[in-house]
């Protein structure tokens, strides 16, 4: 499956996604295929092969090996773990395949990460919450899956912010596994246990559940962080809260594709553009932060979309070129 030296078009793009449980992932895969269309039309890209399946860690390794077998020139992965893919990434790069990880960062020096900064992402809404509470109050946090790298980064982010605000007390932190229903029942539990909550830091689909629980308990004095998803925006509209939604864009993989295109064209990265914990990450900006200031614009833009749809964004080819010499 070696790549001819002179190859300048007809590249094969592989996509590896190890979890299909949420619509966020569906949107991610759809979006990357959409963004590839112009390149396919002009023949630069031959095809996009998708491996999208619920698999454990070593299953994703198998996915990547299958993509290598199918002759992929670039493999875009949403990794299930930061370190576990390193051996197979080495296998791939040794055979001349470019590997780009998105959403979660991998530690492999042979790969490039294209992602938003999850810790910073969490800081934005945490800062907002501190602000709204005037630096004073009792809060709870509802988190995703314990031990998941994105979750860890986010917890790190908000812990920093809340730690810097001496008036904020975190009463309890519970994992609700990024599950809307679990978020709802967990919030119910927390409300009953701590009658004096002032704020909730919560994210993803769980935010919708938590907000519902708070509203049905008749507590409109609690500030809740949220998620830039259509379902949440609808609820926001309906309840008229003072909220925040930070977009976690499924388009990150499309951004990765744009970076890949530049690499395939033979361009070299600018010095110093790589950063992050492993020194191999290109951070792309958080596309949108929804607050009451810009709510109506965003709401109108996404009004027709289904509930699960995330407010999205990805870098343009021009933006991608900025990362290169």
């Amino acid at each position: 499956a070696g790549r001819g030296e002179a190859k300048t078009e007809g590249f094969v793009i592989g996509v590896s996604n190890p979890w299909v449980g949420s619509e966020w992932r569906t949107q991610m895969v759809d979006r990357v295929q959409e963004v590839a269309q112009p390149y396919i039309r002009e023949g630069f890209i031959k095809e996009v092969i998708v491996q999208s399946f619920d698999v454990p860690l070593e299953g994703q390794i198998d996915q990547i090996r299958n993509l290598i077998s199918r002759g992929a020139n670039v493999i875009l992965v949403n990794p299930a773990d930061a370190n576990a893919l390193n051996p197979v990434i080495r296998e791939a790069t040794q055979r001349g395949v470019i590997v780009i990880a998105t959403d979660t960062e991998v530690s492999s020096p042979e790969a490039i990460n294209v992602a938003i900064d999850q810790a910073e992402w969490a800081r934005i809404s945490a800062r907002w919450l501190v602000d709204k509470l005037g630096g004073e109050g009792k809060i709870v946090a509802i988190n995703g899956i314990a031990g998941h790298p994105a979750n860890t980064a986010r917890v790190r982010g908000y812990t920093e912010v809340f730690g810097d605000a001496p008036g904020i007390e975190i009463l309890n932190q519970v994992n609700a596994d990024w599950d809307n229903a679990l978020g709802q029942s967990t919030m119910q539990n927390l409300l009953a246990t701590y009658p004096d909550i002032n704020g909730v830091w919560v994210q993803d689909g769980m935010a919708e559940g938590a907000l519902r629980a708070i509203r049905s308990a008749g507590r409109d004095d609690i500030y809740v962080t949220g998620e830039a998803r259509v379902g949440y925006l609808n609820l926001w509209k309906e309840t008229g809260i003072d909220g925040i939604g930070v977009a976690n864009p499924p388009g990150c993989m499309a951004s990765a594709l744009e970076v890949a295109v530049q690499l395939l064209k033979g361009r070299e990265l600018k010095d110093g553009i790589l950063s992050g914990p492993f020194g191999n990450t290109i951070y792309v900006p958080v596309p949108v932060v929804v607050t009451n200031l810009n709510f109506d614009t965003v709401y109108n833009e996404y009004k027709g979309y289904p509930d699960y749809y995330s407010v999205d964004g990805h870098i343009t080819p021009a933006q991608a070129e900025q990362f290169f010499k």
Partner: protein
Amino acid sequence: MKNNCSAGIQQRLAWFLEPTVLVFSLCLVLLAIGQVVSPGFAAPRQIINMLVVASFLGIVAAGQSLVVIGGKNGIDLSVGNLVTFGAIVGGAMMRQQDQRLVLALVTVLVLSFLVGLLNGTGVVFFGIPPLVMTLGMGIIVAATNRFITGGVPVGGASPLLRSLVVGRLGGVPGILFWWVLIAVLVLVLLHNSRYGMNLYALGSNETAARLSGVPVVPMRIITFGICSLLAGLAGFLYLGYLGSVYNITLGDKYTLASVVAVVVGGTALTGGTGGYRGVFFGAIMLQLLESLLITLRMEQFGRNITFGVVLLLLIFMYGRDKKLRM
């Protein structure tokens, strides 16, 4: 005299070890512990909250208990996916419109019943063990969830459905009324109907049941059908609780939880015994335990270990097989 007395105590002890009573007492104990550790845990409002969360599991477990009672290693591991199926299909059919509610409900019930019939067919006519048959069917249903909707669910609960589920009557959410109604129906079905008598007979001795006129094949197939139907219904009601579907694995957690509720409720996995009374409280007990562990601010690992150990203790009480040496 003395003999009489000890016999009386023995009888009372036996009564206490009766799964239903034991599980119910355990519920009270958990509530008491919760109340002590964190005042407000046993407040009526909080109890109702927990019952609401338990109700979906309770409904799924009702179907599961039928399949288990039917014996021959009966178990249904597709229920979780059917819950999702019920929510997704319900939402897609209803599209938030009240006038489509009935149509959506009927569609969900019919389709999930059909899935159950397929499960039963595989088990009865192809001799596939229920465990793997329903596991495979679960994969198919999960795939269908994706396929029907293109991976992106549309629509959501209509206002009427929402108020039927979360709307309150005298402070009690609608879902609890539905659960009690379903519980009564299941109890009558099990203990006062031809179906129930046939099912218990089937579960305790299939050959004898056939020779007594029990229509073995239809019974098995229909039992899987009812189980799936209840799972689909639970999913539909869950949609009312959630408002919209966001995640195509939302029902997964009910698969094994329903089996646990059945066992905790005193229905042996070997079939032919038990009933819904214990399972009803079993579902509540599981929810109480989970809430309590969260309230205790126990870390994830501690919650897991405690939960597992409690389960083992309950199995020790009555989830045991007969002795080989009598």
